[in-house]
C-alpha cells in the first residue's frame, strides 16, 4: 500500500474507485494477532492467540461474550473492538427486551456492519480498525460471520483473521467440508490446531490461546456462550499432542518468558 493523493480522507474516492482509508483500516486487522472461528450445524467455536505487550503485562482480551447465544473474537485495534462489543451487547439486550427472543446472529452481524458502514461515509469519523468474528446460535443453527471495517460481512463455515492467519486458513481449507457434522470436541481441536499454525513453531499452551464455544446439544439443551477455562484447554492440548505422537517433544513446557520472546509485537493489539 503506497501513500498517494487520494488517501487522506475516508470520503475521497480514488480514480480506480477505491476508498483507501477503508483499505488501510483493513490492514490494521491484519496486524492484530490471529483469531479463528469455525462451526458445525449445532456448535460454533472461537479461538484466539494471545499476545502480551511484554513479559510483565497481561495479554489482551480478544474474545467477548455478547449474549448467552453469541460472542465475538476480534483482531486489530482492541479498543475499537471493546466499544463494538459493548454496542453488540446492548443491541442484544434491547432486542430481547422488546421481542422476548434472542437476536438472530445474522441480524447481529447486520447491525454491526451497518454501524461500520457509517464510519466510511462521514468526513469527521474514521473506520473502526478491528475485524470481528461473530459466532452464535439461533433457531436456524450455529453461525459464524466475519465483519470487516469496510462494513462488509460474510458468513463462513470457518475463517481466520489477523497476522499469520493465512496458515490457519490453509489448515481450515483442507478440512472444512466435513465441519457440518463435527462434534464440539472435534471443532475445538481443529480450532486449537489452526491457532497452532499461526504461532509458527511456538508451543501451544493454555496461556497463549483463548477458546470459547456456543451450541445446542443433541438432546436440545443449549450450551450458552462461554470461555473454556485454561485448565481444560491444557487438557485438550495435552491429549491432542499425545494423539499426534509428535517426535518434536524436546522443548519442555515453556515458561511465559520464552513464549513471548520469539513473537513479533502486534502493535495494534496493544
Amino acid at each position, binding site marked *: 500500500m503506497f501513500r498517494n493523493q487520494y488517501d487522506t480522507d475516508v470520503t475521497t474516492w480514488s480514480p480506480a474507485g477505491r476508498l483507501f482509508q477503508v483499505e488501510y483500516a483493513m490492514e490494521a486487522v491484519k496486524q492484530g494477532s490471529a483469531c479463528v472461528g469455525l462451526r458445525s450445524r449445532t456448535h460454533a467455536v472461537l479461538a484466539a492467540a494471545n499476545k502480551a505487550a511484554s513479559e510483565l503485562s497481561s495479554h489482551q482480551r480478544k474474545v467477548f*461474550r455478547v449474549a448467552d447465544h453469541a460472542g465475538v473474537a476480534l483482531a486489530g485495534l482492541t479498543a475499537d473492538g471493546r466499544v463494538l462489543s*459493548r454496542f453488540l*451487547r*446492548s443491541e442484544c*439486550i*434491547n432486542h*430481547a*427486551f422488546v421481542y422476548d427472543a434472542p437476536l438472530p446472529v445474522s441480524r447481529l452481524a447486520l447491525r454491526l456492519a451497518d454501524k461500520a458502514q457509517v464510519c466510511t461515509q462521514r468526513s469527521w469519523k474514521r473506520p473502526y480498525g478491528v475485524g470481528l468474528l461473530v459466532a452464535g446460535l439461533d433457531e436456524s443453527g450455529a453461525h459464524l460471520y466475519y465483519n470487516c471495517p469496510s462494513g462488509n460481512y460474510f458468513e463462513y463455515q470457518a475463517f481466520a483473521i489477523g497476522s499469520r492467519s493465512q496458515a490457519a486458513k490453509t489448515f481450515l481449507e483442507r478440512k472444512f467440508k466435513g465441519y457440518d457434522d463435527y462434534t464440539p470436541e472435534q471443532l475445538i481441536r481443529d480450532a486449537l490446531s489452526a491457532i497452532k499454525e499461526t504461532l509458527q513453531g511456538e508451543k501451544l499452551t493454555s496461556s497463549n490461546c483463548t477458546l470459547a464455544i456456543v451450541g445446542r446439544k443433541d438432546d436440545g439443551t443449549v450450551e450458552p456462550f462461554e470461555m473454556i477455562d485454561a485448565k481444560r484447554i491444557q487438557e485438550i492440548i495435552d491429549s491432542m499432542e499425545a494423539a499426534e505422537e509428535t517426535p518434536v517433544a524436546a522443548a519442555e513446557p515453556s515458561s511465559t518468558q520464552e513464549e513471548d520472546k520469539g513473537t513479533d509485537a502486534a502493535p495494534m493489539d496493544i
Partner: protein
Amino acid sequence: MSRRGDWVYENNGGTCVAVAGADYCVVAADTRLSVGYSILTRDHSKICELADKCVLASSGFQGDIKALHKNLAARELLYQHQHNKRMSCPAMAQLLSNTLYYKRFFPYYAFNVLGGLDSEGKGCVFTYDAVGSYERTGYSAQGTGSSLIMPVLDNQLKSPSPLLLPARDAVTPLSELEAVDLVKDVFASATERDIYTGDKLEIVVINKAGTKREYIDLRKD
C-alpha cells in the same frame, strides 16, 4: 374505582412477604391476579429472580411490575457483561431504588420487596415504597394483605428495642423451616380476610446451596 378520566393505573392486588435469616432468605407471594372484584387468573407469579442470590417480589399494577422486572433484568445482564459476575443483592437494592425514583413524577405502581443473600452470605430483605425509598430490614410485607401480615411478623420476628445492649441482629434467629412455616401461616391468615390474596402461594428460598421454589394451595374464595 377512580372518577378521574386520566387514571392510568389499576391495582391487581396480591401480597408479597420476605423474611431474612442468618444464612437464608424466604421470599413469598400469592399468585392471584385480580381487577376490581374479579379474578383474572389464579396462576400468576409476582416473583422475579434477578440474580442467583437476589429475588424480587412486587405487588400492585402488573403492567408496571412486568416493565420494572424486565428493566432490572436487562440492567443485571449488562452488569454481568461489564463486571464478569452477577449483581449482589445490596447492589440490586440500590439499583431498584434509583430505577423507582427515576420515575418520581410518573411512578411505577409497584410495591416491592427484595430478598436475598448479601455479600457475606447473610440473609437480607429490602422493602420499598412506590418511589424508591428503601430500607434494609429483617422481614417485610407489601401489597393488599400487608396490613394484615405485618403486625403478625412484628409480633414473631421483631427484635427487642434497638436501645437494648448488646446490639441484636435484625435477621431472625429462626431456622429456615420455621421461617417457611411462619410465612405459610401468615398467608393463610391474610387469605381469610383479604379478598385479593389467595389461590396459591409461591415460596422461594435462597441459601448458599441455591434457590428452591415451592407452591402451597391457599383458599380460592
